[in-house]
């Protein structure tokens, strides 16, 4: 008879702790024998670092992959996606097909991005091609919108050029590394406001890739009307959707928190734009999430003790094209509204049900195939094993924009065959 699961966490959030307690799990410290550790990203670095190197035993699982930063650091994510695309192109894969202007037809989902200071000169070349464009500067290792600013003149980022010209030996401390991306200055607006999408994706294994999408994602609206006007480029309330930023705005509302459910978005788009284009949009969103995971799968340390719940940030432009902005390893578990608290509580609940089957002491050797009933609000996004079982000829028919089956626009269990045909 198995004992109770012993848990540790270094993130003091009620949505976590309430979930552990309701399962009757026992809280211990990290020095004792634990089965489940919900770690912050700093801790995971220590656990898997070469120096301290823990050896995790079979009955221990943690909530991060050792090198999750391949996906969750802005610069590495872009690097990996670029590498993935080039590999597919070399293989002659139809997924890497390009259009007349050289843009990838199916894999162009990350805005043009450069690392600074390393790619400074490449960036300048690109900038000069369209000098009226706006670019967004983001520090590689920060979160919550910290340190982000917009530029539309080279002079505004002189600092990074000086570094690359004057120093022959560049000390790249992670604090100073930035990515600069083409700013999406034509976001889809609703009620005149910019918003982005936060979607939760659970990965239980990278090889074979098995991932789940949480059905209850949400949109985060800016409190201020959007304007691309250059006079408002430094007004973060117009441009950055992070709740950490918006909640300091004058018009922030604590009841709804500026959030909409993804279902609301769907209803609005279907009603105002039509069912087909809305279905296509959501298919594309699922597609880009899966492609981003496939891009990093080869370099991920697929440690069997690990699972991870990512927060995907997606922006939709006014042509209804989705763009992957970034992936968060530690999506916020703070609740800004009552609805938020319920959502995040259920998110953790469903995540634990999949990651720790039956709430019993884990055995990391299990096959990581939970039965349908425990998925809760998750749906299978992609299951590589099942997909491979379906035959190779499906690949050509499965690209986004083509008919994906009778209810291709809806993610649901019966539609599983639709999603798993992607390879």
């Amino acid at each position, binding site marked *: 008879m198995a004992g109770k699961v012993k848990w540790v966490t270094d993130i003091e959030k009620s949505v976590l702790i309430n979930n552990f307690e309701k399962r009757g799990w026992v809280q211990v410290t990290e020095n004792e024998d634990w089965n489940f550790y919900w770690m912050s990203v700093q801790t995971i670095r220590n656990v898997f670092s070469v120096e301290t190197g823990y050896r995790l035993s079979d009955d221990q699982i943690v909530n991060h992959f050792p090198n999750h930063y391949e996906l969750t650091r802005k610069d590495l994510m872009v690097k990996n996606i670029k590498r993935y695309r080039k590999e597919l192109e070399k293989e002659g894969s139809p997924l890497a097909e390009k259009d007349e202007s050289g843009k990838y037809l199916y894999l162009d989902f990350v805005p043009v991005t450069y690392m600074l200071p390393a790619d400074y000169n490449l960036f300048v070349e690109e900038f000069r091609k369209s000098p009226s464009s706006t670019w967004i500067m983001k520090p590689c290792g920060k979160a919550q919108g910290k340190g982000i600013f917009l530029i539309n003149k080279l002079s505004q980022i002189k600092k990074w050029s000086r570094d690359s010209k004057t120093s022959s030996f560049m000390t790249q401390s992670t604090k100073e590394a930035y990515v600069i991306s083409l700013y999406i200055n034509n976001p889809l607006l*609703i*009620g*005149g*406001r910019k918003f982005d999408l936060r979607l939760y994706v659970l990965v239980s294994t990278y090889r074979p890739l098995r991932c789940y999408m949480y059905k209850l994602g949400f949109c985060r*609206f800016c409190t*201020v*009307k959007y304007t691309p006007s250059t006079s408002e480029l430094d007004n973060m309330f117009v441009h950055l959707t992070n709740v950490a930023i918006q909640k300091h705005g*004058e*018009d922030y*509302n604590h*009841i*709804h928190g*500026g*959030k*909409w*459910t993804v*279902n*609301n978005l769907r*209803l*609005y788009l*279907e*009603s*105002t734009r*039509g*069912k087909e284009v809305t279905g296509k949009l959501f298919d594309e969103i699922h597609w880009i999430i899966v492609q981003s995971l496939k891009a990093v799968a080869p370099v991920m340390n697929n440690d069997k003790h690990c699972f991870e719940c990512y927060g995907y940030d997606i922006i939709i432009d006014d042509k209804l094209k989705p763009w992957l902005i970034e992936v968060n390893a530690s999506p916020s578990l703070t609740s800004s509204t009552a*609805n938020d608290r319920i959502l995040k509580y259920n998110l953790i609940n469903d995540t634990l049900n999949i990651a720790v089957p039956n709430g019993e002491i884990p055995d990391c050797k299990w096959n990581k195939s939970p039965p349908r009933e425990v998925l809760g609000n998750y749906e299978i996004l992609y299951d590589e094993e099942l997909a491979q079982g379906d035959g190779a000829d499906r690949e050509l028919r499965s690209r986004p924009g083509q008919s994906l089956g*009778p*209810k291709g626009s*809806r993610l*649901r269990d*019966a539609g599983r065959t639709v999603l798993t045909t992607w390879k």
Partner: protein
Amino acid sequence: MLQEESDLSLIIAQIVQKLKGSNLYAQLERQAWGSWEKRILKSLNSMCTELSIPLARKRPVGEQKELLNKWNEMGTDEPDLSLFRPVYAPKDFLEVLINLRNPNYENGDSLSFRTHLGLIQVPLKVKDIPELKEFFVELGLTTGQLGIDDSTQVPPELFENEHVRIGQKVLTEQDSAAAQQYIRQGSPTALRAELWALILNISSHPEDILYYEQLKTNVIQHDLLVDSLIYKDVKLTASNDDYYFVFEDYLYQVLLCFSRDTSVLSHFAYNSASPPKSYIRGKLGLEEYAVFYPPNGVIPFHGFSMYVAPLCFLYHEPSKLYQIFREMYVRFFFRLHSISSHPSGIVSLCLLFETLLQTYLPQLFYHLREIGAQPLRISFKWMVRAFSGYLATDQLLLLWDRILGYNSLEILAVLAAAVFAFRAVNLMEVTSLAAAEAVLADLSTLKVMPLLQIFLFATVT
């Protein structure tokens, strides 16, 4: 159209001129409406005096320019509204309805009515369940419905695909009557905006857009006290709503124009109520000194903006949104807050609700009455708002599909009764009004079509 436009400007300007420095006075009693009207005007007047704000005034040019610049974001930087309060709330209106008595009926007249234990004491004729089943025959168990037969478990070949195809055909042929019949089974989300426009006979001709622009100009040029009430209402209701907060600015653009739209006055021809008319001080009863205030004759109450909010999910072009709302108002919504004997009027709806409950759920009805929780006290606010703000938006739109399809608001009363039936088990256990309110506080997870279907067609009566 140009003539009408300048007439409208003239009318508004005249109103502003007449109201300069004056208060509003109601003409004496005209049935039950009279004293209610007096109360409302008294409330407006006192707000006027206390806050030293005129009922209407012309804006100085600088202010006009500012407002024009801010037209798309009136939600930000709003005036200080702390001293304003809604003129009335649904519960105030309910008290008026409860005290209605029809002098033509003696207590002894209608035997069956004597046993009516609800709050409404006016013996209007309402349908019973057999009649409702006939009236709402397309909602029956053997007919496909959107809201039931389009759920993910049901293969679309069984109903949904064909229904969508028929909807597209109806739209291509621009057949308004067919659309109204079709929509009884619900509208596909992608077709709803067009179908509603077809049924309401709204098409955006240049003159319609011009008319809206003219109203907008009126808003820019003149400030009405009622505007502050509208602001306050939006800030209290829609701005805090999970679904509608996004559309806050559209609501101002619609409602401020609406209050100046004198063409809305024409609906009073078939509304047995009449708009609050007021007279300049000292000229009581003299028609040439009579003024409708506000110009459209409709005084917004707490929650009024929720009539507009759901429409923002369908229309994002301001003049179209405006036209659709105006038509919905003069066809349906006005009945929810004026006193009449019309079967879709709020009085009849209340009586229908109470009768359904008392007849088909007597145990529940008596129990709630015993503990001082008259069911109408809870359901009234749902019906007055046509459930806006209480149901999830997709469900609300399915409900409003049927209002349009059947050209009747009776479905609101039926749904209210169905909700009570659905939560009957929990309600039987409560022992206070507050506890009953709590059981019925959250309707956001309800699926309206199954509830209606079960209540009408699958309950043993």
